[in-house]
């Protein structure tokens, strides 16, 4: 990877932050989705435990 690639013809200050933001958005999407699924599973488990009449 030559210096030419990293400098992006002088536009590096725009190109790399651009790609970094896009990567961050994709990453946030995956992370946030996994988190909300895990939370939903926990809540569903709790609701089922309550419904099946576990003693308070």
């Amino acid at each position, binding site marked *: 990877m030559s210096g030419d690639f990293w400098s992006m013809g002088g*536009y590096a200050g725009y*190109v790399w932050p651009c*790609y970094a933001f896009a990567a961050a958005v994709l990453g946030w*999407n995956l992370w946030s989705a996994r988190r909300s699924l895990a939370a939903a599973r926990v*809540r569903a488990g709790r609701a089922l435990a309550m419904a099946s009449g576990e003693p308070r």
Partner: protein
Amino acid sequence: MWTWFYKLASPPYVYGVAAAFVPWLLGVAAVALGYGLVAGLAIAPPDYQQGDAFRMMYVHVPSALLSLTVYTVMAAASAVALIWRIKVGHAVAAASAPIGASFTLAALVTGSLWGRPMWGTYWAWDPRLTSELILLFLYVGVMSLRSAFEDPARGDRAAALLAIVGVVNVPIVHFSVVWWNSLHQGATVVKLGAPSMPGSMLWPLLAMWIGFMLVYGAVLCLRLQGELLNRERQAVWVREAIKS
């Protein structure tokens, strides 16, 4: 064919399908994005006018296209849910909203970073940028409206109606560069006739677009599972689903 369609209205079936699809969608997405990044960043030659700055297109255009596609999916799912009272539609709409909003934000930010070297400004109040910003506000409005109701079913229906009302903005964003004199460049890919871009530049773009689309699919499946669990907490199938 219609039996498959009916199955899509069943939450446990959709939950199972979504869970199975995630690894495949992510796998193919990784391949597409990998090719797109390598070809777009390293192999495609610099543009005659824009030099290496044009490479920002490879994240900006897919983000923008996805922001519109996701809204359309959200509006269509909302319409299905309202008209035929299919609750899975509400779950798809609710799952899609935050994803679409994030892609809209990505389109605005990457576009802004691309605009600075190309147009000399981070922002301009031109028709396409303005209507894309309005799209972001519409996403936020739909999400806020859904969460403002104590009764989740009513919130789903209200948000569904708002999503459908707002879909009128999607063609406005797309055709804004045709209808008005815009700073933003015109349509080069999603238009009638052949794309006006050389192959070496076009293939990485298509790969990135497909990659982004597959990521949306995977994230949608993940969020959809959570939404279905939340809506069907008391149902029998949930017990089996969360054990796995």
